[in-house]
């Protein structure tokens, strides 16, 4: 799945696994999903869980503000030089799939300026159920939905739900209040995704982001193996 060739030129072009100096670049994991599903909160929780064991950085793709980047800065989950915001011109899915050049620049600049890095999280702007990351930009992707967005989303499927390397069903603590059937969501997700993993999480209670953080650690172990 990884393009493991190197270019002779002065800088990497796209998904090259090595940096111009020959060192292995950071693992890049994308987080996508609908508006308000908890992508930024998950990124913040991952930073807190992983920052003491890994060198990491975050790229946010805000649709029309720097709110997501500023949330992460305000929460002080990482030093400010490790968080970069990309402007997406009213089309968040374009910037992560069809024209990834601005995001590639952001990840490469982070490696140049605060590297060496083990992991870069690329958070998409809130979008629709068809938004997926290009393989030229990320090595693996997480799709974040929440129980309050309707428990029929796993059944409806779509590229994000069906093909993401990890599906996160967030805000499980809200399920009783919005009438969402978690067992049904789990069965529908299983039907859509076969063997691909699904995590149900609530960031408001223990164990919080633990399962997702463990999945990220496993991805990183595979990347550096």
């Amino acid at each position, binding site marked *: 799945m990884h393009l493991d060739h190197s270019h*002779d*030129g*002065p*800088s990497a*072009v*796209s998904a090259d696994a090595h940096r111009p100096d020959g060192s292995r670049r950071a693992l890049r994991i994308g987080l996508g999903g609908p508006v308000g599903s908890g992508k930024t909160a998950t990124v913040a929780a991952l930073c807190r869980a992983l920052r003491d064991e890994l060198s990491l950085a975050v790229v946010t793709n805000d*649709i*029309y*503000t*720097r709110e997501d980047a500023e949330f992460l800065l305000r929460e002080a989950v990482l030093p400010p030089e490790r968080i970069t915001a990309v*402007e*997406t*011109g*009213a*089309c968040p899915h*374009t*910037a992560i799939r*069809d*024209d*990834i*050049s*601005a995001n*590639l*620049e952001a990840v490469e600049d982070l490696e140049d300026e605060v590297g060496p890095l083990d992991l870069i999280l690329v958070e998409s702007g809130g979008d629709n159920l068809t938004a997926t990351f290009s393989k030229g930009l990320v090595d693996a992707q997480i799709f974040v939905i929440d129980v309050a967005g309707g428990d029929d989303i796993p059944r409806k499927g779509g590229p994000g739900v069906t093909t993401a390397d990890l599906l996160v069903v967030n805000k499980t603590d809200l399920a009783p209040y919005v009438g969402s059937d978690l067992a049904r969501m789990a069965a529908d997700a299983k039907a859509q995704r076969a063997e691909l993993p699904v995590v149900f999480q609530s960031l408001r209670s223990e164990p919080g982001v633990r399962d997702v953080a463990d999945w990220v650690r496993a991805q990183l172990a595979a990347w550096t193996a």
Partner: protein
Amino acid sequence: MSRAALLVLADGRFPAGGHAHSGGAEQAVKAGRITGAASLEDFCRGRLHTTGLVAASLAAAAALGVDAVALDEAADARTPSPALRVAARKLGRQLMRAARATWPSAELDDLARRFPKGAHQPVVLGVAARAAGLGAVDAAHCAAYESVSGPASATVRLLSLDPFEATAVLARLAPESDRVADRAVEAARRVVDGGIDELPAGSAPLLEIGAEVHAAWAVRLFAS
């Protein structure tokens, strides 16, 4: 020369970052200078004959093999707004990446080595055209057309303008865009013999001022 290669380079879907920029349209919409198809056409016409002509001349000169460093300095001299210089170099860097992946060439690699953070976009466009086997005329047409197609598609999103009307604006401007490209190629040919100062220096002060205003906004849809 391949016509199809020109279509690839000029395609609005060519993945070189243009979708995130409005060419000043976002600020002009907010300021009330673009309110519909007619004012979009006025805005684009002004842009075409000023920054469009300069961009087309830079692209044509680069396509003729004029030194990229000298052209990049000339572009700086013709771009007073720091925000626009940043945007032009960002877009240049993004185009460099896309062009190197699309038409691998030693000249593009050399340009990337000399400008790791990007040269002005029209300069990169001219070198990319060479790498694609295209000529100065093609590069000039691309730059001239881009100078109006970007604001037109941005205005469709900003004003919910009827996309057919926006496209008709581009079609009406096509003959003028052709003439601008011709003038740009003539200027670029003069640069080969007469030096860099033969480049036109048409400027649109309101675009420069607007870009500075826009860069200071906290909330915006487009990067420039």
